[in-house]
C-alpha cells in the first residue's frame, strides 16, 4: 500500500445457525422472546445438567464446510474454553479446539475485479453466550438475558490471506450470501446473526509476517471495513516512525470510528482448552456424510464468478444477482432461453425489475413477469419492434398483472414501431416541408436542428416511428 507495506488480514466469522432448537438442549432458538423465557437447566448451566447434541448443528456446519471446500473430519471433538464472564453461565463455552468439524478449505469470490481466493483454516461449532443489558439512568444496573445461551454458532476462521478492507468486506458479503443460500443462518445483521473478529498484521514486502493485532466486537461489514482501515493506518504510522507493533487485542468502537486496547499480550486470556468430558468425540460415518449434500454449482460465489468471467456482467451486477436466490434462478432461466441477451437481462433485473420489487415490497414470483416474457420483451427492443420507452410501458403492464404477452401488449398499447420505409419516407417529406427554418439551420451546420426534426417525426407518428430509421432517412434527404 504505502512504502511497500503489505497487510495480512484474517477473519473469524461467527454465524448463528437457524436451527429450531439450541445446540445442547431443546429450548427454542428464537430471537426477540422475553428475557430468560427460552431457558432450561442445561443452557442456564445449572450444575448437574448435561448437554446433548443437536444433530442439525452438525448438518449445517458440514454444509458450510462443503461450500467452503473443507475436508470434513469424520472424528471431531468438543472442547471447553474456560473464562469468567457474567453472560457465560457455566464459566466455560463449549466449542471445538484441536479437532474441529471442518478444516482446510478455501473460498473464491469476486473482489476488486478479480477472482480472490482466501484459504479457510477451519470451521467449528460452538454455543453462543447470553446478553448483558445495561440499564441507563441513575442506578447503573446490568441485567442478563440467557435466551441466547446455547444458540448454535459456527465460527469460520480464515488464513491471513486478505489484503485490503475492500476484500474483507467482499469476503463477508460472500459468506453471508452462502449462509443464506444454504438456509443455515438468517443473516440478520441487526440481530447479531453474523459477528466478526478481525486480525491485522503489517509487514514490509519480502519480510516475514508482522505482529498480529486482534480486534473484537466488530458487528457490521462496514465496521469491518473501517476497523481494518483504521488498524492498517495505525500500524503503518507506527512502523514509519520506526516503532514496533505490540501484540494485543483491541476493541472496535464503531460509533467513534476507532479501536482501543482491550488487553495486551501480558494480560492475554489463557482459555485452558481441554476436551469436553460430557460429550464423547463426534464420529460421522460414511453414510451420514454422504447424506449431507449441497448443490455446489448454484453457490452464489461460483455463480457470480461465472456471470462475471463468462457472461461479461459487471462485478456488481454479477455478485448482486448471484447472491439473491430468486434473481439468480430467474436470470439463469432467461439465460437458458437466450444467452446473447445476458447483459441486457442483467440490466433489466438491476434497474426496472428491482425498482419495482423494492418499491412494492414484492418477490419476483408474486408478479406476472416470467423469464419468457422478459426475453420476449428484450427481443422486441433488439429487433426494433418497440422503442425502449415502449418496452418500459409493456413491462409496467405485465407487472400490473396483465396476462397478455409482451408482443400482444405492444399491439394492444399501440407501441409497435413503424419501420415501413414508404411510411417513413412520406413522414420525413412532410416534416421537412413544414419546417423550413430548421432545414435551413441544419444546412447551416446547426446539429440540434436534426434532433428537432426527428422529434417532430416522432410526434406526428405518436412515437411509433422507428427512431433509428427515421433519423437515417432524414439525414439522407437533408443532405441531398
Amino acid at each position, binding site marked *: 500500500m504505502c512504502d511497500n507495506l503489505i497487510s495480512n488480514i484474517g477473519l473469524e466469522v461467527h454465524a448463528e445457525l437457524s436451527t429450531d432448537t439450541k445446540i445442547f438442549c431443546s429450548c427454542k432458538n428464537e430471537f426477540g422472546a422475553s428475557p430468560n423465557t427460552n431457558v432450561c*437447566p442445561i443452557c*442456564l*448451566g*445449572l*450444575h*448437574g*445438567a*448435561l*448437554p*446433548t*447434541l443437536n444433530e442439525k448443528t452438525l448438518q449445517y456446519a458440514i454444509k458450510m464446510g462443503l461450500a467452503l471446500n473443507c475436508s470434513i473430519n469424520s472424528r471431531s471433538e468438543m472442547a*471447553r474454553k*474456560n473464562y*469468567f464472564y*457474567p453472560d457465560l*453461565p*457455566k*464459566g*466455560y463455552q463449549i466449542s471445538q479446539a484441536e479437532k474441529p468439524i471442518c478444516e482446510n478449505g478455501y473460498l473464491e469470490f469476486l473482489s476488486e475485479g478479480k477472482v480472490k481466493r482466501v484459504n479457510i483454516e477451519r470451521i467449528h461449532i460452538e454455543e453462543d453466550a447470553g446478553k448483558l443489558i445495561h440499564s441507563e439512568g441513575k442506578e447503573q444496573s446490568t441485567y*442478563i438475558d440467557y435466551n441466547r445461551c446455547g444458540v448454535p454458532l459456527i465460527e469460520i476462521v480464515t488464513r491471513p490471506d486478505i489484503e485490503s478492507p475492500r476484500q474483507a468486506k467482499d469476503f463477508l458479503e460472500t459468506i453471508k450470501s452462502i449462509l443464506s443460500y444454504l438456509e443455515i443462518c438468517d443473516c440478520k445483521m441487526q440481530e447479531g446473526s453474523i459477528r466478526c473478529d478481525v486480525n491485522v498484521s503489517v509487514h514490509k514486502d519480502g519480510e516475514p509476517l508482522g505482529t498480529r493485532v486482534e480486534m473484537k466486537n466488530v458487528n457490521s461489514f462496514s465496521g469491518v471495513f473501517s476497523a481494518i482501515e483504521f488498524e492498517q493506518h495505525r500500524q503503518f504510522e507506527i512502523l514509519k516512525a520506526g516503532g514496533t507493533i505490540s501484540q494485543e487485542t483491541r476493541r472496535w468502537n464503531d460509533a467513534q470510528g476507532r479501536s482501543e486496547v482491550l488487553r495486551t499480550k501480558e494480560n492475554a486470556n*489463557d482459555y*485452558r*482448552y*481441554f476436551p469436553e*468430558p*460430557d*460429550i*464423547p468425540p463426534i464420529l460421522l460415518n460414511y453414510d451420514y456424510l454422504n447424506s449431507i449434500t449441497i448443490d455446489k454449482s448454484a453457490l452464489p460465489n461460483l455463480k457470480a464468478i461465472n456471470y462475471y468471467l463468462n457472461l461479461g456482467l459487471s462485478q456488481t451486477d454479477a455478485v448482486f444477482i448471484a447472491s439473491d436466490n430468486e434473481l439468480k434462478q430467474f436470470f439463469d432461466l432467461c439465460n437458458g432461453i437466450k444467452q446473447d441477451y445476458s447483459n441486457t437481462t442483467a440490466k433489466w433485473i438491476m434497474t426496472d425489475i428491482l425498482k419495482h420489487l423494492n418499491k412494492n415490497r414484492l418477490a419476483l414470483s408474486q408478479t406476472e413477469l416470467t423469464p419468457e416474457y422478459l426475453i420476449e420483451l428484450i427481443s422486441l427492443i433488439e429487433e426494433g419492434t418497440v422503442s425502449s420507452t415502449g418496452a418500459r410501458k409493456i413491462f409496467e403492464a405485465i407487472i400490473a398483472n396483465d396476462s397478455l404477452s409482451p408482443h400482444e401488449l405492444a399491439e394492444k398499447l399501440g407501441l409497435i414501431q413503424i419501420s415501413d420505409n414508404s411510411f417513413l419516407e412520406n413522414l420525413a417529406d412532410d416534416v421537412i416541408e413544414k419546417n423550413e427554418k430548421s432545414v435551413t439551420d441544419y444546412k447551416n451546420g446547426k446539429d440540434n436542428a436534426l434532433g428537432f426534426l426527428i422529434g417532430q417525426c416522432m410526434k406526428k407518428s405518436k412515437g411509433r416511428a422507428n427512431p433509428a430509421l427515421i433519423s437515417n432517412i432524414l439525414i439522407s434527404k437533408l443532405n441531398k
Partner: protein
Amino acid sequence: MNNTNLTAYEARKLLKSKEVSSAELTTKALRQITENNEKLNFAISIELDYALKMAESFDKTACKGVELNSIQGLPIAVKDNICTVFSKTTCASRMLKGYVSPYNATVIDKLSDSIITAKLNMDEFAMGSTTETSYFGAVKNPHDIEKSPGGSSGGCAAAVAVTDALMTLGSDTGGSIRLPAAHCGVVGLKPTYGSVSRYGLIAFASSLDQIGPICKSVKDTAMLYDAICGHDKRDLTSIGREYPSALKCLTGNIRGLKIGVPDEYFTSDINEDVKTAIFKTLTTLEKLGAELIPISLKHAQYALSAYYIISSAEASSNLSRFDGVRYGYRRDDNSSIEELFVNSRTEGFGDEVKRRILLGTFVLSEGYYDKYYLKAKQTAQLIKSDFQNAFSAIDVIATPVSFNTAPKLNQKRSPVSVYSEDFCTVSANLCGIPAISVPCGFDKDSMPIGIQFMADSFREDLLLNTAYAVETELNLFQWARRESYVR
C-alpha cells in the same frame, strides 16, 4: 417390627408379604437417622414430612394391588451432590447452602417409588477421603466416633451402617464410594462408567464420576444397582445396551473364577491387619474353587498422579459456574464484576476445593497442558491397557480398598498424604471399570476392613457374585450385626 439391622432385601420380603408397611419402615429409618445423626453428623437434610407422606401414599397404592418389584417403598438416602427438587442439594458447601434444584437427577426419577428420607453429608464437592471437608462438619465413623468414616461419601456409609433397611446412593470419582464402605463395614459399588446416568449429579470430574449404591449387604447393593442402571438419553456418556439383573446373578458359586492378585497393590505400606484379612479372604475364595493368579499392573504406581491431575483439571472447569452471579453464595459489596467473582469464590469454597481448583487451573494452563494434563491422559491410557491385558486372562482383580483402616479425625496431614489414601481405588475410575468394596474383616481395634474387586466393564455381575461369596462365607455381616454401633 422388632428386627434389628434389617437389610433392604429382607425388608422388601416383609413388605411384599405385607408384614410391614412402607410407612413403618420409613418411620423407623427416620427415627434412627435422626437419633444417630446427632452423634455422627451424616445427614445434611432429613425429610421427615416428605418421606412419611411418600410412604403413606405408597402404602395406599400398594394396597390396591400394585405389583411390588425391586425397591419400591423402601427407604433410601442420597448423597447431597445428587439434585432433588423436594430437598436441598448443598454439595456440603457454603457455596450451595440452602440451594434447591429446579430439577431431579435421573437416578432420583428412577427411584420415584422409593422413599427418599435424607440428603447425606460428604466432603465438599466430593473432594476428600475423610468427609472432613464438609462445610457442615465432619461425619464420624459409627464404629469409633473419633475416627473418619472415609470419604467422600462418608455420610452414606455411616447412615447405612446404623439404619435399618436403608439403602444409599453415593458417588465415586476416585474411590468415594468404596473407601467409606470399607471404613464403615458396608458394601459399596462403583459401577462401570456410563452404566448409571450422571444427569443431575453435581460434577466433580465428569470423565470419572459415577453414581453407585452403598448398602448393608451385597443383595441390597445389587438391588439398588439394578434400579438405577440403564441408558439415559440426557447423558451422552451413558451407554445404551442391555442391563441384565445383577440380583439374579447372585449364586455365590465362584468355582473356576480366575482372581488376579496384582503385586503392585501389596506394597510395604500396607497395614498388617489389612494384609492378613485380605489374604485370609483370598484363601477362603480359593477353597470355594476360585483360582488365584499373580498378575502385574505395571503402571499402577502412576495412577494416583494421573488421577489427581485429570480430576483437578476437570473440577477447575466444572466449578467455574459457581461465580456468585446467578445463584449460590455471593459477596455483595464488590467494586467490579471481577471482585464479585473473586470474593464470592474465595468465601464460598473451602480450602480443599480451592486447592483442587488451583491445581486444575495450573495443569491446564498454557505451557503446562502438554506436560501435565496430556501426560496424565496418556498415563491413564497405559493403565487402561494394563487392565485390558489382565482381563484377557482373568475374571476379577482383588486388592485392598485402602492400605489402612479408618484414620483418626482432625489429624494434621499434608494433602499429599491424604491423597495417597486413594492409591488402590483410582485406577478403576481412570479405566471406567466397575469395582466393589465388601467387608472382609476387622483390625485389632475392631475397625472394619474392606476388600476390593475390579472387573471388566459391565461385569458388575462377576463383582457382585464374588462379593456375595465373600459375604456369605465369612459371615461377617451376621457377626457385625450383633455389634452395637455408636459406642
